[in-house]
């Protein structure tokens, strides 16, 4: 395949959006997302990208602008993180329920308080049920490719849903990684022009965002749920096409050294690369450990997860957010629920680590596996807490 070039992941994501020929960019500055939007503004100002760049006055307005432009049939992108996502949350739910395709890059960052600009997944988990297609990326190449994938899936007439691409703040956004880049021709062949099915047009008048009375509200919710679940074949199809085009294969659930593994680690995002190093170490030490990477968070890949975890004795889920006062952290809860009705189910351990930018090293992952197998005696365990 093509030549690998080093580039900051944020800049690469913006370059991917430019290759997708986006029409509207609306965003508000928030760390650690800023480089993505700054680079897009630069591309627009330099005339390399023919798009409207709207420097709005808050994230709430950013998502509102995106809804407006997507409703008018424009290819739309935005980006945010943590507090920004919290502020735009009202409109995030509206974008998906109104079936407005767009792509949002979420540079995952911890929610305040205490105020933190560093990485964890508490922001993404806050909007878990927002009805968007949600993907967690492992590295820079992953982020770059998924911008194309996101537009292709979201705008597909069989889907018509917004797509959220999660990339770990600083850990991914601010590092320079070797990546293979797409050409304009590749982008054109992969991504057809956006042909909106329902849109605001003076010749064909429609009302969007109207009241849903009790007679229709539940039907709408079910229709949205069905649409999100039915997007799965399109997501897979777009990954297949991406593999044909680039040679890189992505799937909803990926495996690393899982053959004959008695213990499986399950992780999302950039932590997967760290965990794969830990798996190498543990395998060298004779432990039968493997790694399951969960890439597609919504729609949740039930069948693949059941299949991936069926043979294991123990599963250690690495969560990067806390469900305060709840049964366990969000990802573990999901996995436990999915496995509950299985005839042979592994013991599922919940390890919470990497909150608010605390480093998680391969040694930490090995430690967590050891601790989980020794038994923590709790539903969930927050790793590395001092004092």
């Amino acid at each position, binding site marked *: 395949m093509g030549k690998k070039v080093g580039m900051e992941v944020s800049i690469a994501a913006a370059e991917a959006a430019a290759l997708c020929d986006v029409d509207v960019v609306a965003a508000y*500055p928030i*760390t650690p997302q*800023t480089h993505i939007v700054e680079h897009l503004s630069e591309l627009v100002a330099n005339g390399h990208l023919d798009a409207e760049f709207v420097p709005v006055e808050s994230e709430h307005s950013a998502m509102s602008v995106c809804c407006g432009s997507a409703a008018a049939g424009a290819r739309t992108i935005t980006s945010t993180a943590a*507090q920004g996502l919290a502020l735009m949350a009202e409109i995030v739910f509206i974008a998906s329920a109104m079936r407005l395709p767009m792509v949002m890059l979420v540079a995952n960052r911890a929610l305040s308080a205490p105020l933190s600009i560093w990485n964890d997944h508490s922001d993404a988990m806050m909007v878990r049920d927002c009805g968007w297609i949600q993907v967690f990326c492992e590295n820079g190449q992953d982020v770059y490719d998924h911008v194309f994938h996101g537009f292709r899936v979201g705008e597909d007439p069989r889907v018509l849903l917004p797509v959220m691409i999660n990339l770990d703040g600083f850990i991914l956004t601010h590092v320079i990684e070797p990546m293979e880049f797409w050409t304009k021709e590749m982008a054109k062949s992969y991504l057809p022009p956006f042909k909106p099915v329902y849109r605001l047009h003076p010749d064909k008048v429609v009302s969007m965002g109207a009241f849903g009375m009790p007679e229709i509200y539940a039907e709408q919710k079910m229709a949205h749920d069905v649409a999100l679940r039915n997007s799965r074949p399109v997501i897979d199809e777009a990954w297949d096409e991406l593999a044909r085009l680039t040679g890189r294969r992505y799937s909803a659930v990926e495996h690393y050294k899982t053959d004959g593994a008695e213990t499986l680690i399950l992780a999302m995002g950039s932590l997967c690369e760290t965990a794969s190093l830990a798996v190498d170490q543990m395998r060298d030490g004779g432990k039968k450990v493997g790694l399951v990477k969960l890439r597609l968070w919504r729609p949740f890949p039930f069948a693949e997860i059941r299949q991936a975890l069926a043979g294991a004795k123990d599963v250690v889920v690495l969560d990067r957010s806390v469900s305060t006062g709840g049964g366990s952290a969000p990802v573990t809860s999901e996995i436990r629920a999915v496995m509950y009705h299985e005839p042979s189910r592994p013991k599922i351990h919940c390890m919470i680590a990497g909150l608010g930018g605390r480093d998680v090293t391969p*040694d930490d992952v090995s430690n967590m596996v050891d601790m989980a197998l020794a038994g923590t005696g709790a539903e969930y365990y927050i790793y590395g807490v001092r004092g």
Partner: protein
Amino acid sequence: MKRHFRDIVPFDQDSADRAIEEGHGLHPLDEYLKPGRIPHIWCPGCGLGVVLTTYIEAIRRKGIPVDKCVVVSGIGCTGRVAGYLDMDTYHTTHGRAIPFATGLALVRPDLHVTVFSGDGDLFAIGGNHLIHGARRNINLNVICVNNFNYGMTGGQAGPTTPVDARTSTTPMGNAEPGFNLPHLAHASGAVYVARWTTFHPRQLVHSITETFDKKGFTFIEVIAPCPTGYGRPNKLGSGLEEMRYYKEMSEVRNGADPSKAEIRLKGKILCGTFINVERPDFLETYNNLVIAKAQGRDKGKAA
């Protein structure tokens, strides 16, 4: 496994002890600052130190006990003020300093509540709160440090960025006009409106002391240099050169019409106390009108 963690907040015990025992530390205003939190994070040449000093100087001159002062700030470089002052302070989420301060001022009318925030926080993401705070005439002192961009996130265009100014999101120049802050505050109903630059610390101290005596919503805009975020792309030079620009280009005209106080890129800066009027504040109107009426009705019922 042994792990080394650095202290969460760098803390200098010696200087803290000295500040407490001798009543002063390395700086005459140290007793107003949280021991161990200095050095601050502001860039060399930033105007925020000047504004913080003038605020402290104003409470010192007025002799207001620290216990009677509260500072509420939003997010951004200016928002850090709440973390440095050794008094009751609150660092709110982005844009929400005024709603928090409103609640505080209504429950504790005996306190001097000062909102310290930047132009982006007060006029973009929190713009709605500012105009309604002024309309209601809540008893708040707002100090808005205007550096014409979002400094903390890397110098993006904001609500005060002048036309044609370059920022990281407007690399070919800004197409949107910026707000004229004194005009907006006046039109929204503020009873005291002033503008100074960081070149005018004496006037600024005087202005802040004046607002402590004022009942109602007061607004002071302080033009401050941001050599890192705004100065560099617009070729304004270092912090010192920006101060020179303020010296040469600012014109003090007390009582001037705030609608004429628009700021252009590298243009003239009109300074002064523009508005100083009397208007019943929210609590006064509420007590005299609503509470009095309600009490009157209760009395009528009892009789």
